[in-house]
């Protein structure tokens, strides 16, 4: 089958074109670098079916970021049958720079000038024949968004793919042509494909070429000695870049004309996009507007007191007739009206519990009460499955907002606004996007770090992404904060929740600072980025994005989560003798008891009562999916309390614990039964937030991290969570009279150890670096 590759600048509409051609649903955004890996699909309207490969956007074939390496390697090594170079008509000059490089490769090439609809709206025309004649390859006008002229483009591409094309250079500097010619002959002699391309890149001192063809470097340096350009001296790189742009401006400055015939004057006059930009990136209001937008996004998604109208609602007693009906709880609680995100969440949650109840009822009817199969299906399979599916709506709402911000072009401005702040921590403004995405889910957040140019910056960012407490960690916060409030009479649950988010963010900042000063040392990567023009979000693109997310989640629920809940159910219901057993004699229980002492410095180890191991087990099950932590509490809560009282619990208490969706009752029961302190509870939340994230996130991290960094990253998570929680536990213990005595020296001790370790690592690294330098 023939393969056509789509190549072009970031944000030039490649992915939109890809989706239109293949009917596929790749995610499109108005943020340079949205396509971070190559995707393929099929186009079926030609004589034979062809594969379409969507490459990540690149500005040049000199690989600067990971996505640029992917694109370059594909075109050079995989030898597609035709390269379709998408060029943004509204930004011809810079887009054609890449075209001049693609021309140098021995591959059929078709230029597709995209966004013709925008150009026509501005009453401008493009002289396609002129462009095609000068470039020497076919040029087709298209609009990927409006799906105009796409079949024509594919027909032309197909015809081209039947022919051969030899690379050709647009360089005009005489001395240079001489060098490139000689190098190309040498490459041909080495039987290297695409000799012209390699010759030019080597002359440019391209990192990859220099590494691969050291033997030819001498030719370049010999030549450099004789070179003495008027303006650039012996700077070949500058000469070549200059030559390319000269070629473009010389030949193509007049290909776009206004329809009335006069030449288009390039102006810097304000358009709509600029006016919006003036407000959104305003000196004073820019940051305030950004903070307000972020607040609204989270408020819409997570708030149970929507727009703070709770009080007014209570006073007026709107719709008292619905009091106590199923609508209460769904649309409002005593705290206020629910936000759209919470309403959706409740709706799913209620439906799911109804399903579980119905299934449990039916099975009990058929099998009799207390049959193991009922427990397996309802508590093991269904509740685990629904636990993750229940979060789907909230995560989709959150991602809808992010998608809108991205599609309109605002995300790029956010990076622009925040870069100065992020640089203080040794990161670039771009790192903000993956971090904020981490509040939704770590998996897409980690994938998004591919837009970061520097490997060390990427590694540091991936490591701290889990600290931005994700949607699945929210239930842990809610349940335990609720439990603390109930048991210790603490009034403000919100304060606990928000402070825990803050703990995560502060830990991330501290860890990034530490890493960027020790193992991940390096200058903040350069921040040279295109700011795309604002446009309205496209409904289709948004829906595609959400569909992608939904698919990912449903897949996760039916694979990893399903499997792990079954395993946990089995381990907590069977003993080592493969017989069904009570939880404390189960495999999981005995393993928990074995590891429990390890968590003593963290406040939830040996100091707890005999069933304190449930905290250990809950944390371990959280490694598979964070939803499991509270699910474990709910499953084990009732049993554990019963075991402690060494007698059956009254059925109404067990019922209350099981009926409570958020697990607050179960957690409260657990806190009382284990005798854990509130400091221990907070430390437990912190541990879950900072430790190794869920299975899916770990797998993503392994795939995304540079080679050799994965094992260190695991170690980093273990250390960060252990030391972090121990610090929080001892720090908070200073606020209670009875623990004050040991808490002060311990807190100081941990701090001193941390600072000591930091300087020791620095010293050792410096020594190593010095040795290497000598």
């Amino acid at each position: 089958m023939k393969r056509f590759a789509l190549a072009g600048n970031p944000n030039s509409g490649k992915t939109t074109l890809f989706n239109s051609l293949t009917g596929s649903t790749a995610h499109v955004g108005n943020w340079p670098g949205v396509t971070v890996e190559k995707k393929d699909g099929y186009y079926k309207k030609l004589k034979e079916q062809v594969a379409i490969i969507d490459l990540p956007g690149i500005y040049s074939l000199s690989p600067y970021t990971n996505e640029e390496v992917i694109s370059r390697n594909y075109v050079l090594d995989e030898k597609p049958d035709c390269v379709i170079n998408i060029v943004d008509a509204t930004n011809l000059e810079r887009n054609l720079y890449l075209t001049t490089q693609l021309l140098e490769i021995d591959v059929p090439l078709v230029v597709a000038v995209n966004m013709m609809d925008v150009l026509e709206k501005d009453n401008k025309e493009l002289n396609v024949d002129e462009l095609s004649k000068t470039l020497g390859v076919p040029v087709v006008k298209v609009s990927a968004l409006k799906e105009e002229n796409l079949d024509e483009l594919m027909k032309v591409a197909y015809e081209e793919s039947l022919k051969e094309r030899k690379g050709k250079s647009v360089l005009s500097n005489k001395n240079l042509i001489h060098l490139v010619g000689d190098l190309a002959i040498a490459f041909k002699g080495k039987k290297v494909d695409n000799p012209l391309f390699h010759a030019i890149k080597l002359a440019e001192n391209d990192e990859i070429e220099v590494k691969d063809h050291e033997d030819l470097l001498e030719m370049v340096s010999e030549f450099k000695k004789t070179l003495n350009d008027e303006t650039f001296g012996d700077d070949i790189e500058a000469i070549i870049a200059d030559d390319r742009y000269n070629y473009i401006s010389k030949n193509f400055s007049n290909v776009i004309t206004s329809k009335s015939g006069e030449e288009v004057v390039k102006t810097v006059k304000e358009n709509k996009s600029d006016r919006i930009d003036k407000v959104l990136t305003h000196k004073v209001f820019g940051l305030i507007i950004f903070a307000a937008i972020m607040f609204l996004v989270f408020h819409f998604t997570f708030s149970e007191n929507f727009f703070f109208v709770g009080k007014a609602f209570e006073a007026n007693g709107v719709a008292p007739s619905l009091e106590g009906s199923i609508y209460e709880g769904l649309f409002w609680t005593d705290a206020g009206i629910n936000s759209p995100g919470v309403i959706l969440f409740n709706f799913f949650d209620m439906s799911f519990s109804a399903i579980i109840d119905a299934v449990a009822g039916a099975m009990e009817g058929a099998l009799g009460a207390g049959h193991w199969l009922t427990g397996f299906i309802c508590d093991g399979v269904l509740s685990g499955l629904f636990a993750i599916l229940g979060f789907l709506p909230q995560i989709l709402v959150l991602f809808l907002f992010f998608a809108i911000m991205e599609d309109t072009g605002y995300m790029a401005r956010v990076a622009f606004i925040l870069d100065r702040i992020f640089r203080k921590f040794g990161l670039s403004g771009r790192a903000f996007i993956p971090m904020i995405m981490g509040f939704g889910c770590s998996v897409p957040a980690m994938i998004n770090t591919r837009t970061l140019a520097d490997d060390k910056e990427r590694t540091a960012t991936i490591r701290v992404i889990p600290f931005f407490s994700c949607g699945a960690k929210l239930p842990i916060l809610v349940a335990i904060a609720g439990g603390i409030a109930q048991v210790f009479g603490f009034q403000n649950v919100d304060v606990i929740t928000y402070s825990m988010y803050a703990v995560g963010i502060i830990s991330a900042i501290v860890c990034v600072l530490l890493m960027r000063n020790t193992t991940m040392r390096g200058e903040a990567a350069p921040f040279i980025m295109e700011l795309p023009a604002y446009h309205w979000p496209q409904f289709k693109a948004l829906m595609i994005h959400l569909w992608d997310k939904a698919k990912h989640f449903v897949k996760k629920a039916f694979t990893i989560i399903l499997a792990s809940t079954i395993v946990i159910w089995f381990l907590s219901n069977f003993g080592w003798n493969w017989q069904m057993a009570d939880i404390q004699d189960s495999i999981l229980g005995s393993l928990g008891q074995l590891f429990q002492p390890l968590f003593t410095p963290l406040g939830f180890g040996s100091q707890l009562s005999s069933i304190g191991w449930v905290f250990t087990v809950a944390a371990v099950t959280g490694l598979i999916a964070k939803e499991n932590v509270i699910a474990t509490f709910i499953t084990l809560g009732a049993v554990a309390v019963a075991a402690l009282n060494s007698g059956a619990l009254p059925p109404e208490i067990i019922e209350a614990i099981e009926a409570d969706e958020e697990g607050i009752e179960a957690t409260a029961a657990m806190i009382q039964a284990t005798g854990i302190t509130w400091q221990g509870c907070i430390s437990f939340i912190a541990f879950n937030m900072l430790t190794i994230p869920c299975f899916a996130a770990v797998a993503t991290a392994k795939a995304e991290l540079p080679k050799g960094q994965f094992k260190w990253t695991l170690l980093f998570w273990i250390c960060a969570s252990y030391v972090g929680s121990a610090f929080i536990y001892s720090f908070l213990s200073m606020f209670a009279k009875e623990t004050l005595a040991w808490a002060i020296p311990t807190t100081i001790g941990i701090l001193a150890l941390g600072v000591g370790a930091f300087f020791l690592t620095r010293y050792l690294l410096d020594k190593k670096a010095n040795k290497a330098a000598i």
Partner: protein
Amino acid sequence: MLKNLDQFEVGETGLIKKVEGEGRLRRRLFDMGVTPGATVYLRKKAPLGDPLEVTIRGYELTLRKSEAQLVVLEVEDAKR
């Protein structure tokens, strides 16, 4: 008058004379169209004064002051 881009005031325009620096950073600037002969218009500065947003070759580009410092320009008449 020659001036580095980081010294520009908002609203100033200049013609690039030279791009200093080396390696990947310089290469990246070239690839984004920051080459001698191009006209640069300093559109605005970020709320905290850094990075900068410029118009070059018909599009908007953002770069930090530390990177802008590498770009040497001939200042054009500011009244336009």
